[in-house]
């Protein structure tokens, strides 16, 4: 599933915050909701959340930065997460990563100029038995060699 549109809109954000602010421990549900809504959590959301929950800006920012899955900048339409943990490294993920980086012209953690792909490093997807593993738009793939990575990227590029 490609990422949703990522135009920040304060009114929509406030609505989503209102829906959830009554929950005990509402911060994470709110962050998830905003990320789902916009594909990332805009900086402008921090004061809104802090005010709603009566916590400090630093605390909201701290939680966003604690979890790698929360983004503070818009992602590309497709997010490719490539595992770099021990098992995948020993099965050659670095070669695949180099290949993907070369093909898309970005480094890990960056988004292509046409905003079609974001490539990120992750540390263990729990798929060590199928190393090297990646996750493309939320769906895991195992035994990803350079060829298979090409195949996956081709598939997404055709889709658009």
């Amino acid at each position, binding site marked *: 599933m490609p990422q949703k549109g990522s135009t920040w809109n304060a009114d929509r954000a406030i609505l989503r915050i209102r829906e959830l602010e009554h929950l005990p421990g509402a911060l994470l549900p709110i962050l998830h909701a905003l990320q789902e809504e916009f594909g990332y959590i805009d*900086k402008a959301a921090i004061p809104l959340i802090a005010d709603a929950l009566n916590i*400090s*800006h*630093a605390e909201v920012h*701290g939680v966003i930065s604690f979890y790698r899955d929360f983004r503070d900048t818009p992602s590309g339409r497709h997010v490719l997460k490539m595992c770099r943990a021990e098992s995948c490294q020993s099965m050659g993920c670095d070669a695949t990563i180099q290949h993907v980086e070369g093909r898309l012209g970005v480094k890990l953690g960056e988004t292509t100029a046409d905003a079609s792909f974001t490539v990120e490093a992750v540390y263990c997807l729990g798929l060590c038995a199928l190393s090297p593993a990646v996750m493309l738009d939320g769906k895991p793939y195992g035994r990803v060699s350079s060829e298979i990575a090409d195949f996956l990227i081709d598939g997404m590029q055709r889709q658009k």
Partner: protein
Amino acid sequence: MADSKDVTLKIDDRDVTVPPGTLVIEAARRMGIEVPSFCYYPGLSLQAACRMCLVEVERAPKLQTACTLVAMPGMVVRTNTEQVHQARKAMLEFLLANHPLDCPVCDKGGECELQDMAFTYGADKSRFAEEKRHRPERKWSEAVYYDAPRCILCFRCVRVCDEGMDVKALGVGQRGSQSVIIPNGEDHLDCEECGMCIDICPVGALTSGTYRYKTRPWEMKYVSTVCAHCSNGCKTTLSVRNNEILRANNRDLSGFNKEFLCVKGRFGFDFTSHPERLKLPLVRRNGHLEPASWEDAIAEASRRLAEVHKASGADSIGFIGSNRTTNEENYLLGRIARASIGTNNLDHHRTADYPSLIAALGEKAAAATVTMTQLYEADAVLLIGDDPTQQNPLVAWQIRAAIRHRGSRLYVINAKSIKLRRKAREFVEVSQGGEAAAVSWLSGSDETLDPGVAESLSALKSALEKENNVVVVFGAELTGAAVRDLVKFGASLPGQTRYMALGDYANSRGASDMGLLPHLLPGYAPLADVKAREKFGKVWGAKLTNKPGLDARGMLAAATSGKLRALYVVGANPVKTFGVNANERLGKLDLLIVHDLFLTETAKLADIVLPAAAAYEKDGSVTNTAGEVQLVRKGGDVMGTRSDFDILRIFSHQLAEHGLGQAIRLRTPEAAFDEIRQSVAGYDLSMAALLLGEAERTSPISTAGGQAKFDAPVGAIFSAHDTLFASGSLGRYCTTILSLPEAGPKTTPEAGAHS
């Protein structure tokens, strides 16, 4: 004394008995056994992040953190075993994994907890071969810098900012080995700039903008004194090198403020080295103030004052004292006015109605007022008026700590939605200036109030009636009759109600205690009291007049109308404080003498300006708003200045030569304090305790009895409402504080810049 509930446990083969709920780390410290720790800080929530305090506990499968372990009966703890030593060594190895070894340039080097621990418990080498992670240093504000690699993530700063200060400006970003401390403003701090985070940091991660890279801890001498700003009297340690004050902090935590200091206490010392500081006496010649020698200036001042005295009489001369000068100096000024000159035209900028409170409490005054420590021990606090967070930061800190540690309840009556409202059980918002009416209503008068206010006041009243031993803290909003009403209301509450009046400046209370008032002699002895007059007359070698004197506004008005011919101002800025039109040059005065640090609005009009030493540059004693007396010590020194004490003493000798009064033979502030202890009611304090740096509470008892008047003239008592970033005229010369963005546009200074 052992309570039956107390817990006995064994630490390092010795028995110790502690109250239930005590942490093992505290129990060990009580026995003199050091259990090292970084993240544990008494009074803050538990973190157990640093793992330095691991100890061996019998029958526990692995090492336990002493900072979170509650002492249990029969527990056997060992802090000195091979396993514990191994653990400490390993923990330090981890803490040092990314810690740069830049001790030789780090501000903290020499007083760093990590350095001390590495020396004591650490290994001589590290097994980490990886490169250390480096991150650039960040400037979070003019006052606070953050150096991430040095940080050991104990989170003391985050906790003190959140729990202690209720500011919540710091948080933790990222996670694991990437964790960093983050400020609330993304790349800068937006906070009260108290600098608590700097002092509490066990390493050199948070450093002070004013102190960094200036010196090393062992190159300075440390002078324990009292903060020169607000009336709370926090103890502060000045770090002095070559007579220059480089830092103020809470090095030994020995004051009643413990670790607390606000932005003024920590960064507001640089007025002492401000370039506009007066360093030579100035005498007006041909309309211009020109430098003069001390001899000439004082000789001229005394000669001209004697001339005015001869020509127009004693009551044509007025004295306005300071609420920052020491008790000794205030006492001397009162003596010169009343004994040498023979007038009761004597006043200062009054910022709290101490006389009314003391009169209203009568003989109970000593037992019915609270010290700063007792405020923390209060179960219930009623706060009327004032904004302690801004005006009396230690009072706010004590109230917050009482709520946090002891579950105390706070009730607030205020015209503004002050920050402490967040912590209050009940908040009654009255109209601007409506505090006195609310108190009058509470005391049972038939005051007509807005129905909404009356309703919330009656809710507050019934809540207070369920409390016991309430402490009432009030600001300058309550004066005169309102104070009497308040005491009446307090008497109707269960238990013993106790009080604290909040003034503005470092020695506001002392100025009042020392009798810088037209109608009261030192120790609140009424002028009308013949015995009191005789007593002081004997000590001062003069017959004191009971002719009523003018208050500050009265003197300024008399100056305009020409009745007052000479005004002697010590460390005050009446032109600004009382809003006198500066163009009128204070009316038709023949002589205006001013002691001050700077050329204030008042000093600019003076005929003779004497450059005074600041509070950090002299010895003496001050009394905080709660009546706690502490000694101030000479830290820095500025060439050319003299303490007000010396100026007044020399001045009295000169006056005596002109036939006015007796020369003051008290050579030192200590000698003067000795006389104060003997002659001023309530000041018979333990010199030993004071010399040891403790605070001793005065216990003045008003002898006014039925004669007490509660009709302080309107406008005689008012607060300057200084914020955290303002401090009267003095605040205008605190460069660092003014550079902070929170200080905002220049505030209007009110009181004397003085000392």
